[in-house]
């Protein structure tokens, strides 16, 4: 039997075992290739102006390759360990280390570059799909056409060839550094499995849970007004990160075995088959994989969190656009507005017009403001616009009272205010007391007018009085009147927006006009594009991470299955059926995959919960959608591992 035959045989055997590795590799190459293809594709120029699509995709392809490279290297260490006996045997029959290395390299070469070719083909086919997804997210109506990019091909081949060289280097060092005897012993020394539970571990276990809960607790308090200083806020955030990450590590290192040990103690030695297969094995394994599990949990929590936040942002694009421009269109300059309405009339588009005169003032809010970043009373001033209730039509404010409209969600958290209380409007004739009667988050004026703090609405009579005594210096260089236009039929929005943009581009080219005319539709598109892009990138990176980490957990389970095969033999000899064992294994995998998943989901839930309002207006739906999706994809790997165990159990007697 020549070496070539051995190589081919090994390959055949390995593919059956490592189909997931091949799949992950193909997926990684495909995704990388399509990202690079997109980067070089001219059709992405459509989005120029809003953000640099190409650059963003380029940067994320670097991240992607980092994830894939780490995965491939890690997977390789698992594989080479599994094959150490085989390598030892080759050495025993007289093959030199150099020959063995050649053998392994040739084997890997075929497997690796075979998958790479597959990946590039899939990537070429898939890049069109990916572009279509991107355009769909971004709401761009361009047919997704793609050419085969030679640059992308070159880049992909170079990058993956480099990873291949790295893997070979690792194999070389592994073979070089091992003696025949140690190779035979790798598996048995790999894990010291059975020990008593030392006090140290109990302490670690309790600390782990306490740290995580502590981190969660601080996270819920983060924007609740407790941490008002920027430095304090930073410190709190770092504390949360540290507590949660260290807590997660201790959790795997101690808490899991601690809790399981408690359950086991209570059974007093009388364990059911499910407990035999799950409790004891998980207790010892989670400890030895603590670091790996911590990394997987943390990064997946990060991925879920980022994805949720960008989805929240994308999901709330409409609401945020309403905050930026409450009316469909808004103008500061009456002449420009006239031009626009004339064009609308001509096109037969009907609309309602709103005219709101404005003045600006400082308002002393010391009485209603809670604990904020500003400590001193004289800092608790809101500088914003004041309008009359008559301009709005549907709002009525009593004389002497005022209502704050359009306080943004983010600011509401940073600057908590009581709904009612005494305010002081600063005028040229001193402070005029006004009674605050209600705060709404619904905006009535574009963001430009009130900032995030909204505008004060007062009674018409009060408005006339106040405007006369307002500081003249506050009214300089700011718009003092506003025209809002609402279309009667929002179906004509696109048509109206075309008129709007045409006008904008014929008007003066500088940015003055951008600041004086507003289109809700434009705000929404911009938000969708930037958030969509981020969501797209985070989504695919997250998917890559999910697949690679799922694969690693699966490989670990493969190893575990092989190691525990002897146990299954014993149990089957004792009279447990394959079905009994399989049920036990399902139970065990529920924990093996479930614990990291649930910890990751909790982490991301608390991360999202602490600061979601900075990103959008709706938290639950987008977050739940992301989490469910993640759980489903992740569970696939758990199911695959059960299928693998089924085979091990069947072959064990």
């Amino acid at each position: 039997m020549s070496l070539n035959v051995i190589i081919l045989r090994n390959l055949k055997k390995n593919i059956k075992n490592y189909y997931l590795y091949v799949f992950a590799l193909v997926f990684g190459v495909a995704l990388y290739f399509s990202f690079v293809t997109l980067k070089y594709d001219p059709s992405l120029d459509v989005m120029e102006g809003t953000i640099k699509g190409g650059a963003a995709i380029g940067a994320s392809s670097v991240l992607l390759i980092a994830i894939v490279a780490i995965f491939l290297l890690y997977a390789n260490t698992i594989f080479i360990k599994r094959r150490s006996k085989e390598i030892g045997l080759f050495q025993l029959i007289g093959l030199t280390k150099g020959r063995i290395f050649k053998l392994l390299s040739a084997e890997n070469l075929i497997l690796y570059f075979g998958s790479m070719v597959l990946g590039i083909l899939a990537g070429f086919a898939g890049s069109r799909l990916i572009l279509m997804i991107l355009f769909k997210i971004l709401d761009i109506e361009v047919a997704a056409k793609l050419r085969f990019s030679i640059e992308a091909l070159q880049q992909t081949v170079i990058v993956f060839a480099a990873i291949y060289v790295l893997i070979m280097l690792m194999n070389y060092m592994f073979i070089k550094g091992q003696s025949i005897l140690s190779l035979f012993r790798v598996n048995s020394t790999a894990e010291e499995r059975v020990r008593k539970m030392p006090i140290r571990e109990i302490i670690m276990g309790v600390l782990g849970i306490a740290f995580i809960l502590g981190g969660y607790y601080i996270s819920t308090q983060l924007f609740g007004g407790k941490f008002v200083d920027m430095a304090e806020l930073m410190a709190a955030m770092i504390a949360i990160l540290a507590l949660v990450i260290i807590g997660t590590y201790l959790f795997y290192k101690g808490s899991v075995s601690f809790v399981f040990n408690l359950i086991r103690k209570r059974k007093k030695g009388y364990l059911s088959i499910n407990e035999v297969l799950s409790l004891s094995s998980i207790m010892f394994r989670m400890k030895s994989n603590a670091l790996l599990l911590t990394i997987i949990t943390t990064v997946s929590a990060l991925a879920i969190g980022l994805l949720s936040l960008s989805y929240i942002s994308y999901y709330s694009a409409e609401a945020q656009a309403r905050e930026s421009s409450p009316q469909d269109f808004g103008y500061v300059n009456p002449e420009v507005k006239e031009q626009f309405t004339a064009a609308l009339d001509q096109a037969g588009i009907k609309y309602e017009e709103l005219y709101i005169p404005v003045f600006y003032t400082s308002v002393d809010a010391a009485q209603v403001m809670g604990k904020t970043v500003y400590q001193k009373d004289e800092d608790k001033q809101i500088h914003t616009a004041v309008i009359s209730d008559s301009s709005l039509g549907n709002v009525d404010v009593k004389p002497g009272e005022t209502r704050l409209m359009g306080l943004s969600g983010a600011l509401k958290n940073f600057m908590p205010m009581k709904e009612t209380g005494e305010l002081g409007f600063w005028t040229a004739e001193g402070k005029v007391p006004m009674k605050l009667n209600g705060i709404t988050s619904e905006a009535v004026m574009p963001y430009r007018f009130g900032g995030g703090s909204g505008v004060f609405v007062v009674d018409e009579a009060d408005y006339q009085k106040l405007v006369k005594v307002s500081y003249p210096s506050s009214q300089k260089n700011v718009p003092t009147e506003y025209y809002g236009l609402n279309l009667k039929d929002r179906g004509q929005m696109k048509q109206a927006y075309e008129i709007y943009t045409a006008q904008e581009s014929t008007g003066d080219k500088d940015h003055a006009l951008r600041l004086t005319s507003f289109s809700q539709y434009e705000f929404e598109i911009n938000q969708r594009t930037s958030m969509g892009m981020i969501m797209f990138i985070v989504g695919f990176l997250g998917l890559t991470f999910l697949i690679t980490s799922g694969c690693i957990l699966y490989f670990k389970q493969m190893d575990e299955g092989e190691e525990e095969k002897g146990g299954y033999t014993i149990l089957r000899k004792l009279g447990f059926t394959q079905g009994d064992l399989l049920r036990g294994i399902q139970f065990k995998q529920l924990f093996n995959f479930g614990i990291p998943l649930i910890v990751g989901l909790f982490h991301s839930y608390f991360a999202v919960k602490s600061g979601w309002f900075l990103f959008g207006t709706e938290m639950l739906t987008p977050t739940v959608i992301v989490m469910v999706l993640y759980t489903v994809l992740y569970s696939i790997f758990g199911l695959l591992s059960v299928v693998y165990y089924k085979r091990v159990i069947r072959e064990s007697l």
Partner: protein
Amino acid sequence: MAILQANKIYKTYGNKFNKQEVLKGIDLTVEKGEFVGIMGASGSGKTTLLNVLSSIDRVTRGTIEIEGKEFTAMKEKQLAEFRKQHLGFIFQDYNLLDTLTVKENVLLPLSITGISKKDAHRKFEQVAGELGIYELKDKYPAEISGGQKQRTSAARAFVHDPGIIFADEPTGALDSKSASDLLNKLADMNQKHQATIVMVTHDPAAASYCSRVVFIRDGQVYTQLNKGEEARQSFLGDIIKTQGVLGGVQQ
């Protein structure tokens, strides 16, 4: 009363063209309360015999009954159920699960019978007390000696009162002191509880603890010796003599 009855059992390995006949028509009857030893040279088929008798392996031809139940035609699942209820095992390499404590290992066969927790503990105390492993109950297999492991394995075989216990070279990996300890315990259990034990061994000294020794050669029963009222020492002499005649190589 015969507890195990094997009629004309054959076992062949391999395919049509390359047949290896390991068991060639063995008849064997074991009475309740007997302690039977099966001896033979390497490759004589004694372990295969034990495997088919204990339903871990299937016969090619022939029938085996245990406690009046014929099981050679049973399905895999029924076989597992059968082993669970009627059989106990002691293996050469102990076959303990090293992630479980001594007590958990011993109680393993009980967990499927649905016996109450209290009864299970009582049962454990009794068996573990008799085999002298009660103090080890919270230790893991890695923390105890080979002899202690084998006694744990024996306790697991006895704990659910099986109809018959199969022991495959139980002393094979033990030093002589632990081996005689274990065999004394097995003989005790056999005497006190009328437990039926079938033990495969190649060690004449181990076989001398049995009440009857069956010699296997080339897949057939060669001869058997009954201890009767004989002392263990003289029985050992008989066994060694027979074994000498038996030899490993055809003469």
